[in-house]
Structure formats: structure tokens, C-alpha cells
């Protein structure tokens, strides 16, 4: 079925259980779908935009109130919505990093953090992970000392992935922030896999910036996200323009430099707003989500030869699994080679595992109902049995 010329309807979520590792937390709520219908036009939120002509001042629809509510929810002082977490990284890096500055990030950091550092002229320095794929406070302290030795100054900024995209491990942000602050280094928490699916208290964690992704974890259309900060840093990162035209003498009032004036217009911000009451509620049920994740991981581990590479028992719904000694053994002799797994899952109404992957792969169980979680757990075991793998 087409929704327009040469554009197929996307009915993946209606026809399948989707366990794609990056898509789970971004599925729209029904209210966000309705908002998308009503606010699809480009400048749809600008009907009642009045002086001082900035997105976060718009009262109808209540975008201004949304900013206040977001800050309160994250226990931070100020928030701006941005086109994706990456644009939040960019705004903070551009403010704090000068050319040639060392910037700390971790060996589990997302590529967009590296790019934000590079764009600002910074030099990335990675904090190593330990044998359990964790970033520890001790490793952070040691790396800061290394960097100070090398550059004769402390880094002006550190990035930490609250939950890393590779293993879905939850890192000890509070203890790490404490170490960074001992060296007066502001810390940016990348909450792309936490803000919107699990409870976050920025002040309690002691971080200076909390970045979230709307399309990854806040049931919002892409590209959307947020950057939240404390009163201490807000004035700097949300500074307003001082530009003046040399011919026209024009100035641009309260437009914010790092936000490029207005940021998240139309369907993206309205979709985020429409989902927000549901998001605020759903983070309270994180334990249920983790329990369902554990059930599916345990089903996979009942298949002989399968290993989980993420923390076990799971504390997050994103998991990295190693099936080199189980499903990949089947792939070696199967007529469909590595594609048998995704094919067999698809026959059972499950999608999101990269076709051909039978070695090391990831999946995310966030948002599945109880019945869907059981279906996925049973499907893995059935596929294993059908292919003569031993199940305990």
C-alpha cells in the first residue's frame, strides 16, 4: 500500500513486534499520532507567535509551559527543545570547547559526541571501559590526570553516556559527575537511552547538562530532543545574539546563538508535547520494562551456546547478545545462511533483528506488552528447537 507516489505506508508497528535496538522508545503514543495529523504543516505552531518571537515563549499551543514542565520533570533549571540529542551535544560543545581543547568522552561514546567535539575544534580523549564494559569513577579520575599531564590544563567538558548504545549498560553517573567536579569539569549526560523511559533527576545525579532524544526515548517524531541545564550554565549556553548588521544596523533581540533562533517547530515539538504526559507516567513503570527484558534475555540464555554481553541480570531493555555458538552455528549449514534467524522471526511476526545477523547483535524490548514479551521469548526458543539447538 502506498501513502503517496512511490512511498509505501509504514505499517511495521501494526503488523509486527518490532525489537529494533534504536526504535523502541521512539514509537509514537496515540496522542502524538493525533498531534501529527493536526500539526503536520511546516509553521503550524507559529499562528500565535508574538513578540519576542521565540519558540519557547509561545503560549498557544502551550510550548512555553512545556519547557517549564520538562525542566521540572528532569529536576534541572532550564530546558530547550532541539532537533535531536546530537544538536544538544553540538550546542554545549560549541559553547565550552575552544580550538585545541582536550575533551573527555568515553570508549562507549556515540559518534555524534565525537563530531560535536570535532566541530568545536576540540581533541577527544577517551576514558577506557573496564572488563565489564563499565565506565568507572576511578578510570575517569585517572584519565583526567593523564589529560592534565598532556595538555597542562583540565578539559573544559566531559561527555558521559548514561546508558551506552553498545551494551545498554547503566553507568554510575552520580559518582562520575562527582569526580569530574573535583576537577571543575562540567559534565554532560547523554540520556538518549534514559530520558523518557526511566526516571532521571539531574540535580541528584549532579550533572551540568542532561540531553534527551525525542525520537529515541520520548515517543516523539524525529528529529527531536532536549538540552537541560542548571542555572549556573544556562546563561552561557543559552546566550542571546549580539550580532548587528553593519549596513542595516539590524539586531536580533533575544534569539539564542546556539539554538539558531527558533529550534523545534511544527510536528516535532507538538508530537513531543502530546506524548509528554504519557512519558512522564511511563518512566514510573521502568521496573516492569526491565522485568520483560529479563524474561526475553533468559529465554535466549536457555539456548545452549548463547551469551549475553551486556550486564546480567539486565538493568535496561537494550541488550547485546552473542549467538556465535548457537544461531551462528546453524547459519553455517543453513540454506538461508545467516538470514534464517530474521526470516524465522519474521514468520512469527517479529522484526528488528538485522537480516543476516547471527553473531553479535542487539535488540530492545522497550514498550512490549506482557503478551508480546512472552511471544518474543517463546519465538527465540522455538526457532532454536526447530534448528536442533539444545534448550535447557
Amino acid at each position, binding site marked *: 500500500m502506498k501513502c503517496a507516489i512511490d512511498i509505501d505506508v509504514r505499517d511495521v*508497528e501494526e503488523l509486527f513486534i518490532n525489537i529494533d535496538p534504536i526504535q523502541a522508545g521512539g514509537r509514537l503514543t496515540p496522542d502524538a499520532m493525533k498531534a501529527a495529523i493536526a500539526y503536520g504543516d511546516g509553521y503550524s505552531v507559529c499562528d500565535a507567535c508574538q513578540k519576542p518571537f521565540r519558540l519557547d515563549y509561545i503560549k498557544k499551543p502551550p510550548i512555553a509551559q512545556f519547557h517549564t514542565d520538562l525542566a521540572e520533570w528532569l529536576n534541572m533549571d532550564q530546558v530547550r527543545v532541539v532537533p535531536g540529542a546530537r544538536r544538544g551535544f553540538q550546542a554545549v560543545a560549541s559553547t565550552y570547547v575552544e580550538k585545541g581543547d582536550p575533551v573527555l568522552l568515553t570508549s562507549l561514546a556515540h559518534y555524534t559526541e565525537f563530531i560535536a567535539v570535532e566541530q568545536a575544534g576540540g581533541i577527544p580523549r577517551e576514558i577506557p571501559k573496564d572488563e565489564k564494559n563499565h565506565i568507572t569513577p576511578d578510570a575517569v579520575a585517572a584519565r583526567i590526570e593523564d589529560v592534565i599531564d598532556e595538555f597542562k590544563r583540565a578539559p573544559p567538558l566531559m561527555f558521559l553516556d548514561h546508558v551506552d548504545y553498545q551494551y545498554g549498560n547503566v553507568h554510575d553517573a552520580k559518582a562520575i559527575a562527582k569526580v569530574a567536579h573535583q576537577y571543575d569539569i562540567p559534565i554532560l549526560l547523554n540520556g538518549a537511552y534514559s530520558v523518557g523511559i526511566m526516571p532521571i533527576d539531574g540535580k541528584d545525579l549532579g550533572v551540568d547538562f542532561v540531553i534527551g532524544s525525542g525520537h529515541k526515548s520520548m515517543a516523539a517524531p524525529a528529529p527531536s530532543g532536549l538540552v537541560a541545564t542548571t542555572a549556573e550554565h544556562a546563561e552561557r549556553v543559552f546566550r542571546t545574539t549580539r550580532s548587528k548588521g553593519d549596513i542595516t544596523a539590524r539586531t536580533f533581540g533575544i534569539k539564542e546563538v546556539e539554538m539558531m533562533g527558533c529550534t523545534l517547530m511544527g510536528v516535532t515539538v507538538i508530537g513531543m508535547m502530546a506524548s509528554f504526559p504519557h512519558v512522564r507516567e511511563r518512566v514510573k513503570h521502568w521496573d516492569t520494562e526491565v522485568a520483560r527484558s529479563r524474561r526475553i534475555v533468559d529465554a535466549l540464555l536457555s539456548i545452549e551456546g548463547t551469551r549475553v554481553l551486556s550486564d546480567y541480570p539486565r538493568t535496561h531493555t537494550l541488550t547485546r547478545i552473542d549467538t556465535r555458538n548457537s544461531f551462528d552455528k546453524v547459519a553455517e549449514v543453513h540454506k538461508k545462511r545467516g538470514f534464517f534467524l530474521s526470516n524465522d522471526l519474521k514468520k512469527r511476526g517479529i522484526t528488528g533483528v538485522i537480516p543476516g545477523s547471527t553473531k553479535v547483535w542487539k535488540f530492545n524490548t522497550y514498550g512490549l506488552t506482557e503478551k508480546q514479551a512472552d511471544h518474543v521469548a517463546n519465538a527465540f526458543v522455538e526457532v532454536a528447537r526447530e534448528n536442533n539447538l539444545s534448550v535447557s
Partner: protein
Amino acid sequence: MSRRAVDAIFQALFNLSDLRALMRETAPDHAMDDEQRQRAATYIEKTKRQIAIVEEELIR
């Protein structure tokens, strides 16, 4: 201009969005329990009512 027809079109689309969400909730087999069947029936009924308003306003 018919405000009533425009409202009914949006309301019908919103009811169908609720039905779409139910399809997601029950994927992949869409085997519904009693409560889900009741919700489906309600969304369908509400959609029919809105379509009737659109017909009344725009065609009859």
C-alpha cells in the same frame, strides 16, 4: 464553510488513530481480549458517527 464537518473529519481520524494504536498493541496476531474488543468496537462506532456527520454536512 462547515466547522462541524471539519471537526468531524479530525475526530474520525483521531478515532482511527486509537484503532491504529490498538493494532500496534495487539501485533502480530491481533487476537484481542474482551476489553480490547470492546475498545475496538467503541472506536469503530465513534468513527462511523463522525463519518455520518461529514456526509450530512458535505453531501446531503
